């Protein structure tokens, strides 16, 4: 089916690939982020080759603002969650032959100054996946409950289920190379994708590294209920293929 979608556009795709032989693509999932999306997209253009915003069924002007700022916009007609939006971005990255992709949030919580060092570290360490961490230096002010309770629990869950050892468990700043892009397929539509990425990377034998990044909290993000929901999604997700 995908072949059919892109059959008529080989010329434009080839043009894209030849213009950026080592394309670095930023994927920005966005849901009702009209206030910040424009400036986030603009700030990204100094650090990546292209920006794709996956508008996840927003009811505001997110798509128009993102397009106005120069991003490619893919629009989910229904809200499917951040994991689903990222996988749509991955699919697009595979189509246009991106060499590296960056996951970046639409709410200005990340710092674009971390992007170049991240890509450099991924290349220098010959890693496939780079995950941002809020705990490797003191730049991020993480709320107490999150720092002391939710994230340690998440780390323990990862250690027990996927045998991955990370200093941060749910950080949306990531860089993936093409190998990781080909081997990782996100099936968790909502927030549990953040657990799925290191787990799939470990299973596929991909090398994962961490880098300290700065996170500025605009909103709290995942609370206690969110954490419980993520664990529920991960557990039910493990049964889906087995029963159906």
């Amino acid at each position, binding site marked *: *089916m*995908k072949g059919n*979608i*892109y059959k*008529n*556009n080989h010329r*434009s795709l080839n043009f894209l690939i030849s213009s950026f032989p080592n394309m670095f693509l930023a994927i920005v999932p966005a849901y009702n982020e009209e206030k910040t999306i424009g400036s986030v997209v603009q700030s990204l253009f100094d650090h990546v080759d292209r920006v794709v915003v*996956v508008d996840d069924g927003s009811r505001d002007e997110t798509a128009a603002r993102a397009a106005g700022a120069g991003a*490619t*916009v*893919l*629009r*989910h*007609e*229904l809200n*499917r*969650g951040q994991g*689903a939006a990222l*996988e*749509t971005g991955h*699919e*697009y990255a595979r*189509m246009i032959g991106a060499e590296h992709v960056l996951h970046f949030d639409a709410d200005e919580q990340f710092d674009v100054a971390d992007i170049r060092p991240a890509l450099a570290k991924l290349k220098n360490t010959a890693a496939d996946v780079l995950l941002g961490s809020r705990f490797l230096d003191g730049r991020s002010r993480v709320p107490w409950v999150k720092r002391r309770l939710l994230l340690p629990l998440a780390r323990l869950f990862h250690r027990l289920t996927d045998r991955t050892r990370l200093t941060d468990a749910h950080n949306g700043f990531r860089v993936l190379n093409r190998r990781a892009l080909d081997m990782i397929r996100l*099936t968790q*539509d909502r927030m549990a994708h953040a657990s799925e990425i290191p787990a799939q990377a470990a299973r596929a034998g991909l090398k994962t590294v961490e880098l300290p990044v700065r996170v500025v909290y605009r909103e709290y993000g995942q609370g206690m209920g969110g954490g419980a929901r993520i664990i529920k*999604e991960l557990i*039910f*997700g493990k*049964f*889906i293929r087995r*029963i*159906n």
Partner: protein
Amino acid sequence: MLFLFQLLFFLFSFYAVGNVVKKRREGSASRRGVIFWLIFWLIADVAVIWPNSTTVLANAFGIGRGSDLVIYSSLALLFFLIFKLHIKIESINRDVTKVVRDRALRDHENIKTLKH
């Protein structure tokens, strides 16, 4: 009193079995599902018509009363069905995502083709 309950339950089980058979004819029920529900309603009818039969079975499992056995097994069955339902909903959710994703990529390409 018990007779009236038995009669009503019996009628309801007939209605339920009729529904299962109808769904099978329409092609919306699997063979395994039909067999499961037929056996389920058969056991339920036997238990209602001969209430002592559950006590015999309960004693075999080391449970005192037949009605306790019915409650325990019903709870287990309900939990299992809710679990299966959850999985099914999640699976449908993933299918919806696939459709939404394909449309998003297709729409984007169509717009680009129109512009060129």
